[in-house]
């Protein structure tokens, strides 16, 4: 309906993105009907969609870093205006909707939030009747998300219809007037989200009650990982420099590092995993041993294992078999003198597949043939299966379906119950709240004070994500006493 903000809700893999791509013309449907303004229509490509008045803001930006804002927008429009005209329009529309941007800035110099504004501007300049947004707040702090909502409400009030794809229930309930829920490729309901609760929406999405978060019975032990005074200049102009990062991780605990993407998470993870060995001496210690300049293999030998955010191409080699992929971080199949024991590698892979429920044709299956969820299960299994003392993880359940996500969270919890320690860097606040006992926030390369999850509120975390630490009184630092902590 014109002026409606319509949410499309569903968990990962339910088909939201695919449906939107069909509407936008990037993908062709196999069957079914589309009607636009009452008339049936078949959309073959994005150009046609744009001509009809449909605009889409993707989750993964289609931007060109070496070009300016105006040029980027220009390329997304039909060939009607000159470059100068576009530049003027960009400035005008950006002021109108509170999305301030300068036309002449290079996209490479923009922050993630600003880049999203370019995408939105590009969509707005086509004067759309329908604006589709795919998971827009994934890269925004709660405060920035609020500002986006203001803009969206303004647009809706002017008669533009908005389709808002998300899996974040709070946002949908706050912003949208209608909501269609997708599950496994089918629409299972159409409701008014303002009248629903999180729980009822959740049940619609999943078809059943959501799985209970793992119950933790942790006993805190010695300091497993200590980071102190970790300052690291960035390795290229586009990166973020780390400034005086310090944290303490004890055995038995799960510490979460929250933050919006692009604030130093990648740099921190690289410094911890050993891919970046420039950390100052003594700044990273595993059970007291200095590993600041140690290679990944040395860190693994001391019990630190790492699960990267990129599963394909970094956590695994897509062209190699699963048995070969075990060799990336496990040494069991390597014999003396460097000879490979392929049978052992295969058996190791097979045992991982079995224990972690990886759906694959067998240890000889090529990693690239696995679905995202299964590949992640394999990688998590590979690292947890090595019984690490410290597990560092980046985005453990991003993009995964509920079942896989739940399994991975259970395993991490079990690892820590058995005496391990885990550091989870994630952009998904819900996940961190569910799994961790304490949280820190990383913003612009600095860490906020530490806070227990039960004391943290999304508003406070949101504030910290913008870099404003120490505004409200921070609660006491790391709990000293060991004890049983139940986590409901």
């Amino acid at each position: 309906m014109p002026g409606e903000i319509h949410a499309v809700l569903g968990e990962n893999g339910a088909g939201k993105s695919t449906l939107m791509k069909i509407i936008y013309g990037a993908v062709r449907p196999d069957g079914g009907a589309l009607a636009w303004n009452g008339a049936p229509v078949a959309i073959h490509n994005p150009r046609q969609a744009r001509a009809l008045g449909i605009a889409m803001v993707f989750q993964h930006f289609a931007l060109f870093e070496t070009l300016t804002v105006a040029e980027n927008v220009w390329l997304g429009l039909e060939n009607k205006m000159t470059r100068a005209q576009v530049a003027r329009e960009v400035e005008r529309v950006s002021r109108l909707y509170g999305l301030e941007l300068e036309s002449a800035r290079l996209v490479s110099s923009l922050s993630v939030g600003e880049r999203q504004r370019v995408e939105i501007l590009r969509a707005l300049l086509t004067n759309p009747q329908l604006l589709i947004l795919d998971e827009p707040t994934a890269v925004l702090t709660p405060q920035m998300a609020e500002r986006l909502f203001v803009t969206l409400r303004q647009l809706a009030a002017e008669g533009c219809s908005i389709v808002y794809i998300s899996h974040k229930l709070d946002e949908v309930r706050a912003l949208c007037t209608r909501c269609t829920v997708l599950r496994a490729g089918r629409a299972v309901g159409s409701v008014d989200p303002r009248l629903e609760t999180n729980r009822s929406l959740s049940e619609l999405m999943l078809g059943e009650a959501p799985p209970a978060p793992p119950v933790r019975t942790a006993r805190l032990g010695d300091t497993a990982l200590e980071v102190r005074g970790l300052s690291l200049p960035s390795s290229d102009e586009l990166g973020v420099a780390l400034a005086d990062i310090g944290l303490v991780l004890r055995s038995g605990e799960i510490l979460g590092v929250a933050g919006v993407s692009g604030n130093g998470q990648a740099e921190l993870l690289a410094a911890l995993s050993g891919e970046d060995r420039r950390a100052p001496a003594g700044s990273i210690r595993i059970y007291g041993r200095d590993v600041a300049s140690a290679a990944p293999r040395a860190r693994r030998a001391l019990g630190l294992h790492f699960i990267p955010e990129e599963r394909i191409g970094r956590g695994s080699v897509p062209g190699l078999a699963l048995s070969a992929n075990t060799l990336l971080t496990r040494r069991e199949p390597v014999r003396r003198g460097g000879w490979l024991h392929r049978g052992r590698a295969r058996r190791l892979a097979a045992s991982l597949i079995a224990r972690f429920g990886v759906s694959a044709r067998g240890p000889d299956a090529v990693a690239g043939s696995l679905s995202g969820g299964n590949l992640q299960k394999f990688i998590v299994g590979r690292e947890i299966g090595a019984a690490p003392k410290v597990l560092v993880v980046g985005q453990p359940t991003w993009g995964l379906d509920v079942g896989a996500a739940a399994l991975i969270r259970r395993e991490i919890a079990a690892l820590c119950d058995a005496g391990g320690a885990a550091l989870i860097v994630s952009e998904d606040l819900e996940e961190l709240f569910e799994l961790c006992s304490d949280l820190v926030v990383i913003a612009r390369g600095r860490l906020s004070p530490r806070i227990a999850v039960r004391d943290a509120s999304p508003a406070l975390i949101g504030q910290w994500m913008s870099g404003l630490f120490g505004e409200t009184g921070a609660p006491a630092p790391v709990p000293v006493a060991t004890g049983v902590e139940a986590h409901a």
Partner: protein
Amino acid sequence: MLAASVNAGTVLALAGLGLLVNERAGVLNLGAEGMMLMGALAGYAMALHLSGGWMFVAYLAAAGAGAAMAALFGWLAIGIGTNQYATGLALSLFGVGFSAFAGAAFVDKQLPERGRDGLPWLRDLPVIGPALFGYHPLVYATMLLALALGWFFFRSRTGLLLRAVGESPESAHALGHRVRALRLAAVVFGGAMCGLAGAYVSLSYTHLWVENLIAGRGWIALALTTFATWRPARILLGAYLFGGLTMLQFHLQERGVQIESHLLGMIPYLATVVVLVLISRRAAWIRHNMPASLGRIFRPGS
């Protein structure tokens, strides 16, 4: 010697500008040597049947030959998605072999006498005439081409689009642009230019045909694009510089400088290496200027 440098440099510049368009779109065509040879041969073969004012048809034939080979490369590397390096190499090897094979018949055939080079009355001006206007039309065409490409890439929308495709074909595709068609067009243009450059060698610069006439200049042209950080004006600069270096070698020999001719012959190639090292040293700079998707296969829908 300046004149000789400009002539020598024009060969490199013409090929280099073609390859520039290629690479700006993100495609690395290592078949430059093969395309230049085929162009040289095609031009020569055609010229044997022509005379006087119809010479330009020979150049067209050469451009066509280069374009055809580039189209073959494009069909494989862009259309089907084969490895760009290997396919380009195959093109070069095939071009070398085929031109040697088909050209064997032409080795002893002589072209008719060359007319005077240069622009019609301008060259007859006293003093500056021969110096500035006495060159083959293709020399001037190359300079114009460099200017035109500069305008194209930085002022026109299609040029902008091509640069965008070179940086991120995925994003361009998401916006609905026809990435593969654009890349193919760029590649074919590049091939045509290489063919032209080859014809310039066989028809004007050396005015004969032998096996392996191009002697590595195709590869130097490839190095030129890196040297010029993918900017048209710098390609001209680099090309004339290299042309000069090649001429320097002959010049020294003429002057009786007592260095063995073979050692002198190494100069252009060693110079290329030195230049490459100097340019590549600053990794950040390269990343800023190099088309980010250069050499990567793009498959829509993947």
